[in-house]
């Protein structure tokens, strides 16, 4: 990216502070997507240990069944729930569902697309992710 273009760059793209909860959701969607892809690749490797037989599988399970492993797993659960719920919201939005209807705008011009339905969707995704994470922690540490 040339300096002449005066682009904000990655710092501007990931800065969630200036444009409300929608921009926070945008950032979390990206981060959770990348995190889930990393976990998915790791999970494919993890499950391939079944081919090493019972001893190999148990060895690997023992290695990942630690406090850190459980915490990482609970974060994965939270990312999965957030990415799913917010993903459905975004997908509906992309289809033009719930973004409002075109009309003659009146000052102070509150954008109809940034409406309460989508805000509720974002907050729901966050709350559900937190609840799922707690549940995951309870299941993993409860045993």
């Amino acid at each position: 990216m040339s300096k002449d273009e005066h682009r904000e760059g990655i710092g501007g793209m990931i800065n969630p502070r200036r444009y409300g909860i929608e921009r926070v959701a945008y950032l979390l969607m990206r981060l959770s997507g990348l995190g889930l892809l990393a976990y998915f690749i790791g999970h494919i490797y993890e499950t391939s240990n079944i081919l090493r037989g019972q001893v190999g599988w148990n060895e690997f399970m023992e290695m990942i069944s630690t406090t850190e492993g459980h915490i990482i797993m609970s974060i994965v659960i939270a990312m999965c729930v957030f990415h799913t719920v917010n993903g459905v919201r975004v997908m509906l939005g992309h289809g033009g569902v719930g973004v409002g209807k075109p009309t003659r705008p009146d000052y102070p011009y509150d954008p109809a697309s940034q409406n309460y339905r989508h805000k509720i969707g974002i907050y729901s995704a966050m709350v559900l992710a937190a609840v799922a994470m707690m549940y995951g922690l309870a299941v993993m540490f409860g045993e």
Partner: protein
Amino acid sequence: MRESTIMKIHYGTALAAVALVAVHILMRLTMGYAESLEYENVLANYKFVPYAIMLELILVLLAVHGFNGLRVILLELKQGRLYEKAVSYGCLVAMIGLIAYGSRTIIMTNMGMA
């Protein structure tokens, strides 16, 4: 392939994966999380053909969705003909590689080679 076709696949794989991953997770929870990860139980899952097919479907759906998502992020980060081709083909190769590696686990375990 047109970008609209790719993105329709992206949305389709997401929706299908949500349904199948939900079943996959519920299977862990119905018999108890720790118990479901015991060697015999995992092996039994792989040997049960409908479940193995479901795992294979999840593998393909998530690999397609995940690597296309990565491609989208990388395309937005930097531009240039060579870079964009490298990203697109790189993600495709990684996707195929991951599907092949995961399929190897599913098929070999299902056929009793574990």
